[in-house]
């Protein structure tokens, strides 16, 4: 793992991508710092952080689009896959290389609150909490970028895919808060979800019988619950999408609360995405 980590970390600074990431990140944060804190005479740095969460949609693709696609296009995947290193080593090495570049850049932005501290009293621990949350949110976003970089074949689709995936996750919050909480529309959504799972099973196994069976069982369960205990569907969409709403979990950090549940959420989400990446790479190789 260390070998891949060192290679990709130095790779960021051997090419432009590390510098591009840093400059775009610092440019956007500095604009928001100046307009949100300096010009408005506000010491609420966490509010500034909360208003630039969209930054991950723009900068994470810069960081992750090359990670796996470059290996394929340079045909260096032949070297990695025929060497005694596992997919876990490769994925973690690359992931931590990207996280390191992000961490260094984020550390540079801590100059903003430090510069404010010369002009008054800052709620230091609140800001530290906010930055930890910001860092964890970045870690999840980077994991998603690594996942998408390993399922796409070229740089452009990796970049657009990561951009789209993060954008969709960001919109989930708006979607789930406008979706009706009543029973009926939520039951319909559950039925659609069951059909979706059935279709996915069919695609993976290529067996129409199995897909049909999953569809029938899924719809049966949805219908049974609707008949027996319809109140379970109240707010179903709201809860299901809540699992993916990583930007929502930043709120507690923004208020300066180090909520254990949010930390656990970010770490497990990251772990799950990376685990999925390794599984997908293994499957793609042996099929």
């Amino acid at each position: 793992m260390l070998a891949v980590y060192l290679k990709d970390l130095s790779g960021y600074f051997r090419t432009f991508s590390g510098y591009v990431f840093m400059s775009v990140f610092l440019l956007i944060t500095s604009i928001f710092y100046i307009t949100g804190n300096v010009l408005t005479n506000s010491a609420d740095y966490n509010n500034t952080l909360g208003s630039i969460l969209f930054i991950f949609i723009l900068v994470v693709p810069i960081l992750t689009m090359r990670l796996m696609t470059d290996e394929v296009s340079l045909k260096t995947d032949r070297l990695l896959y025929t060497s005694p290193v596992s997919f876990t080593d490769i994925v973690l090495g690359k992931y931590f290389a990207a996280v390191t570049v992000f961490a260094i850049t984020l550390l540079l932005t801590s100059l903003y609150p430090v510069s404010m501290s010369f002009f008054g009293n800052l709620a230091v621990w609140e800001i530290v909490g906010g930055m930890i949350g910001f860092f964890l949110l970045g870690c999840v976003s980077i994991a998603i970028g690594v996942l998408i970089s390993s399922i796409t074949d070229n740089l452009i689709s990796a970049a657009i895919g990561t951009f789209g995936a993060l954008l969709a996750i960001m919109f989930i919050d708006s979607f789930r808060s406008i979706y009706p909480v009543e029973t009926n529309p939520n039951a319909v959504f559950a039925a659609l979800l069951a059909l979706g799972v059935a279709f996915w099973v069919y695609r993976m196994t290529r067996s129409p019988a199995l897909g049909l069976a999953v569809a029938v069982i899924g719809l049966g369960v949805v219908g049974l619950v609707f008949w027996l205990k319809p109140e379970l569907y109240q707010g179903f969409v709201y809860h299901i999408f809540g699992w993916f709403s990583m930007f929502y979990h930043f709120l507690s950090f923004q208020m300066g609360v180090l909520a254990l549940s949010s930390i656990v959420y970010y770490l497990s989400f990251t772990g799950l995405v990376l685990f999925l990446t390794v599984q997908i790479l293994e499957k793609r190789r042996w099929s």
Partner: protein
Amino acid sequence: MIEVIDVSKRYGKHLAVDRVSFTVDKGEVLGLLGPNGAGKSTVMNIIAGYIPMTEGKVTVDGLDVVEQGHEVRRRIGYLPEVPPLYPDMTVDEYCTFVSRIKHVPAKKRKGHINEIMERVQIADVRRRLVRNLSKGYRQRVGLAAAMIGNPEVLILDEPTVGLDPKQIIEIRNLITELGKTHTVILSSHILPEVNAICERIVIINHGRIVASDTPENLSARLGGGKDLVIRVPGQAQAALGILEGVGGINEVDVMGEREEGTIDLLVRSERDTRSDIFFAFSKAELPLLAMKPFDLTLEEIFLQVTQDPQEGSNNVSSVS
């Protein structure tokens, strides 16, 4: 050391490799010979564990390539068709990276890399970026990467492609030397190359093994260089008349006019007839402008090894 048992590889409906089986003994140098697209690289990718086979089984040192992949990869050094290089690294950085992923102990790393760089002669470019290297140097850096970690088995896919004649000889000598301590599989589409390096040759065409033998037996089956091409001035009639008087000639084919005012003839004999032909023509005062052994092109070799030996001689109508 390496056992390939009934390996097939299917891409959709296309059968790239069709039930290929062969074994390589410890310390043997095996040549995979075949034209481009014959399935050589696919077979090598499967042995190196880069892609899975559709059917069949490959073991290295008794270990299954699929089931015990991690252990097998410790024993294999692989140079693919395109050397797997990072263009933004220097040769030094690249070799260090490779030695890390091959688990070369940190203390031995420097000495090990230096030794390999000397052997493949890339020490003079060690500080240069890979992207600025010539094709010959890139090929040798790729070869160095395969040798790092001193694996028992080396799989080299067209190791001399892109090298100049002097470098080709150097790399051939290096591979011959490596063959004394390693098990080597190398592929090529050049017959003299595998003839020079390999102890055994497996010929592949259209994904199938068409012949597997030692270079000596193989060239005996291919006519052993007793066939000659001669060039004489004028028309074919006169030359054919002279050649009729020479004993030991089985067959003469007229190959046509390659140079203005001359004619080329392919002479197939059962023994070495060069002196007889020379004296016969000199007696008739018809000068021999050229006489050279008839080298089969790879395509013609396939025609020959896949054909019944009796029919073999009738079929060559032109020489490239």
